[in-house]
């Protein structure tokens, strides 16, 4: 099953290329009651230990494919199923140090059945979790 928290414990790890850490990943679940098209997603902020990550360094991995964060709203044919995690994949030379990190993030999404004034009223709560890079 998934963690109840939006930020998942499983999947928090460095990503290496040829043995060199080039970034890290953190997995999130969708705190909603149905899946969404990727184009409905409205990414917010992501920070680790209080340091904000630049949007240009973030991709969202959905169904095994990575989409640069700035492009997610273009993908109206990619479906993020409710029980699948999405992975925020972050470019960062050397990755994160082994040990505990404070991860904070938020994101919302468009809900067309709500009045336009409340279009992105879901999911605005900031998510925080302290997790270990093993």
């Amino acid at each position: 099953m998934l963690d109840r928290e939006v930020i998942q414990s499983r999947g928090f790890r460095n990503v290496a290329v040829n043995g060199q850490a080039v970034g890290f990943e953190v997995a999130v679940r969708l705190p909603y009651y149905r899946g969404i098209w990727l184009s409905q997603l409205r990414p917010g902020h992501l920070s680790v230990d209080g340091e904000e990550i630049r949007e240009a360094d973030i991709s969202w991995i959905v169904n095994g494919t990575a989409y640069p964060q700035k492009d997610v709203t273009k993908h109206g044919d990619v479906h993020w199923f409710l029980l699948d995690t999405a992975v925020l994949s972050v470019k960062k030379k050397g990755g994160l140090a082994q040990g505990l990190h404070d991860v904070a993030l938020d994101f919302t999404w468009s809900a067309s059945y709500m009045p336009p004034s409340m279009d992105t009223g879901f999911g605005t709560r900031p998510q925080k979790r302290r997790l270990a890079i093993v």
Partner: protein
Amino acid sequence: MDPKKTRGIRRGVSLYSYSGEYGVTMALEDMFKDIRDLGCDGLEILANAHVPGYPKPTGAWVAEWHRLIRKYGLRPVEYGHWIDSRRYPGRELTTEESVAGLIVDIKLAAKLGFTVMRTKMGVISDDLDPVANWREIIKGALPTAKRYGVVMCPEIHNPTLLDSRMVREYVDFIRETKTKHFALNIDFGVMMHRTWRFPGMSHDVVMKYSPVSDLKPLLPYVAVCHAKFYEVDDDFNETYIDYPAILELMKKERWSGYLLSEYEGLKDQPGRASDQLRRQHVLMKRVLGR
């Protein structure tokens, strides 16, 4: 199976009720077991919550779906889905795009054995007015709905009132087109006489509601209901919605179809939805006699 042809009022459950548990403490089969244990068979899913690989599940998953439906003796009643009119930022889906998506859902609903669809349309006002081209969208999909034997239903949901322009327009559409493939889903929340205070909300939002009697003239156009509820107490009274009044009216009017429980109360305490569903089904059985 056309639920309108099923004799009498039948009980069922929308899997929405378990949304605080699904994926965290309950899987699909757990919810099926729960529903069977209520002594009822009606089932609503939300397509993009309960069908892995939506909108194109694998054949293996579809076979597993039918195996589980048979195993627990359930009847797929309502397929909940959305036309996300604001799917792309900055523009509304065209009629053609909307119809194309709707046809995908109609085919998938039929493949999974559903006969009613809760077709949630995009909204353009604080009063929940649907997109201006809703008639064109529905008309564009009616031939497919007919071919696949499903009824599309907008959901009449608070703050919409039963006696309102919007509902009259839907009824007029049904009369004018004489279609059997577009009807209403009434969410009992429109008759909520006391306001539910969401956890964390500091004050009640005052909402208008419809008297139960306003349901009567609509019943011939109602294919299915969301038996919305918040809290059933130890004496089997729903605190916010007058179930006996609603169900007695429906019995008297000889309405036939499924009441699909939609638990909307506190969801983050494991086991609470299941317990509340059991209480609500006691309440409904007591009035319905079965």
